[in-house]
């Protein structure tokens, strides 16, 4: 077992036993499900919309070279500078260079999972720069110096009391634990940053090939401010964010809001197609768009799992995943958690190091059912397992299956096995759940049923 897998198990053990955490997350996600179901029902035909979304993303990704080229060229034609980064390090270097060329010190940022992915904030801070997260949830976890808990709801694991204490200790200001008052504290702090920051950094939800625009979805307006006020704007996005046409957004924006948050539309959906134009009075003078590969082309080359690149990062799969609910977002130990994270992380960061994420699933399929673009998520978890074995199997486990095969393929052995089991079971009860028990992984938390006498086959044979 890798050390990462061991850490995963250790964290999972701790969080699954934390009943307070369980209760908080259950409450949060229960509300989401009710809202999501209402919004889906409001659609005239959610199922066909989902088919169309899947087909559109298929086109976007299977013609990615043409779409990406069109996107980049149109953006550049309107004065944006487009940068291409094969690796996370290249992306960090590009962004750092832009900032250092401006001799800037203060950066305001809106939510970008790709920035988490490349550990951008740490790199900027190491270079002596101040970077402030402006999305309230991200602002909160930044103060706590922890990773976002969920790709859409970064602070869903925290109570108002914890946030109040955090603001008190880090900002010296927390009038009460009232959510509105706490939000106003953050608003006041961020206001000053929006106005004075020299650099704004955003992510993007979509990249429109037809018109050369990025699209940003949010509720707070912090990305709108980040893209309006600072003189230099940098947008970092994965190459897979492409949509072919502008009108595709008429489908994707409401579906993103519905699946991701149970809302009809998010508060602000904004398209940016260039820096401030000659006839415009404000907006960034420079607009840099950084396109990130970082192993996405590896996933692209896997035709079986290429559809994992269709992901619109709505978070629906996280919301319905019973594993996510019980282990929490931090246990995954990587940027992308939940089912989509468990599918793509082995491809993005190494199969053998991260295969345990694909194993930590009961393959229930709730994720696949929830995905608005019909990614075959739970089957890909199975495919990851198969691929990991093909490269490096566990001899012990293989032996176990060979023994199992021998027994079930020889009915006599199966029959003997049951008889032996019935004899041994009373003995087993005395060591059940303890350190000597070979079935401890079951019996530590669960009782074992007694082997039946007669078994079904014995009953059937006697009948004849």
């Amino acid at each position, binding site marked *: 077992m890798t050390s990462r897998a061991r850490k995963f*198990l250790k964290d*999972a*053990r701790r969080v*699954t*036993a934390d009943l307070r955490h*369980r209760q908080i997350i*259950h409450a949060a996600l229960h509300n989401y499900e009710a809202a999501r179901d209402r919004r889906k029902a409001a659609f005239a035909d959610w199922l066909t919309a989902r088919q169309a979304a899947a087909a559109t993303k298929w086109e976007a990704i299977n013609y990615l070279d043409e779409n990406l080229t069109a996107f980049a060229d149109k953006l550049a034609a309107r004065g944006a500078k487009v940068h291409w980064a094969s690796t996370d390090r290249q992306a960090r270097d590009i962004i750092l260079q832009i900032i250092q060329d401006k001799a800037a010190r203060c950066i305001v940022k809106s939510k970008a999972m790709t920035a988490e992915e490349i550990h951008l904030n740490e790199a900027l801070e190491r270079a002596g720069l101040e970077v402030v997260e402006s999305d309230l949830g991200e602002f909160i976890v930044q103060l706590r110096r922890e990773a976002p808990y969920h790709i859409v709801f970064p602070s869903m694991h925290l109570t108002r009391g914890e946030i109040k204490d955090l603001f008190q200790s880090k900002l010296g200001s927390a009038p009460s634990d009232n959510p509105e008052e706490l939000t106003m504290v953050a608003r006041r702090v961020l206001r000053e940053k929006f106005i004075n920051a020299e650099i704004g950094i955003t992510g993007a939800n979509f990249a429109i090939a037809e018109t050369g625009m990025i699209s940003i979805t949010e509720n707070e307006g912090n990305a709108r401010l980040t893209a309006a006020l600072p003189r230099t704007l940098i947008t970092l996005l994965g190459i897979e964010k492409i949509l072919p046409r502008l009108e595709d957004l008429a489908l994707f924006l409401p579906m993103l809001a519905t699946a991701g948050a149970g809302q009809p539309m998010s508060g602000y959906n904004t398209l940016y197609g260039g820096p401030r134009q000659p006839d415009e009075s404000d907006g960034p003078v420079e607009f840099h768009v950084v396109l990130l590969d970082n192993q996405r082309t590896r996933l692209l080359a896997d035709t079986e799992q290429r559809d994992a690149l269709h992901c619109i990062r709505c978070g629906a799969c996280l919301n319905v995943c*019973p*594993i996510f*609910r*019980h*282990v929490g977002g931090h246990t995954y130990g990587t940027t992308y958690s939940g089912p989509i994270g468990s599918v793509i992380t082995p491809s993005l960061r190494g199969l053998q190091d991260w295969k345990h994420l694909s*194993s*930590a*699933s*009961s*393959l*229930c*399929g*709730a994720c*696949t*059912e929830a995905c608005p673009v019909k990614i075959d998520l739970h089957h890909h978890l*199975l495919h*990851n*397992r*198969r*691929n*990991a*074995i093909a490269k490096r*199997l566990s001899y012990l*486990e*293989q032996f176990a*299956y*060979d023994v*199992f*095969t021998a027994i*079930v*393929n020889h*009915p006599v052995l*199966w029959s003997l096995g*049951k008889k032996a*089991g019935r004899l041994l079971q009373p003995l087993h009860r005395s060591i059940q759940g303890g350190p000597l028990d070979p079935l401890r*992984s*079951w019996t*530590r*938390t*669960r*009782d*074992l*049923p*007694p*082997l*039946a006498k*007669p*078994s*079904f*086959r*014995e*009953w*059937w044979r006697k009948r004849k």
Partner: protein
Amino acid sequence: MTHRGAALTMRGNRMTITLFIPCFVDAFYPRAGISMVQILERLGHKIVCPKALVCCGQPAFNSGYWEEARPVALKTLETLRNAEAVVVGSGSCGAMVKKFYPELFSGTRHAELARQVAARTWEFSDFLVNKLGVTDLDARFPAKVTFHDGCHGLRELNLKQPPRALLAEVRDLELIEMGEAETCCGFGGTFAAKFPMISAAMGETKCASALETGAAYLVSNDMSCLMHLQGLLSRQGAKIKILHLAEVLAQQ
């Protein structure tokens, strides 16, 4: 009209049904299999249970050991080659044969056989409702029950309605749906052993939802789920009892 003990009115021709009772049902819960036999015989069909039919091969398959799963799956396929109709006593094993055998054998010389056998295979409740067109089994079970949707049956085989259509016809039975009816119970096969803490936590959430309904019985069409939930319930000392769907339908 039917009366106690008599054969139900048979729709269609008498079939020879190959009943696939999964390995763990055979070993731990034979009464589920016995109930299936009783029901299908009452409907006028002939049942065969080939000796060679023990396991569908899912444990190795789900862990990614597809090479090791093939000999078991192949043995099952060969045994079912000439079956007129195959009824599988569990949603997860039914999904294995119906959905995953074609994938497991795709590109091999057994691909066609896998497809054909899959086309003649049904999970038990699916068979009754969608193949035989029967929902009323002249059953009576005066109790409050709640139903757990096993994930494979629910999502791989679309089995939300058939069990409920059958339970709706059981006299004096009251079905109370639990909030987490469709949520995974946490068994997941080898997952239960590899990630026992997650498995148990998921099971606890499920048990709590079932107990909230006040039902006396927790019913499902997947015995592996029930085995896991019963393990937790008995450790908790909870009073709710588990039953396979077939056991309820066999009551008269």
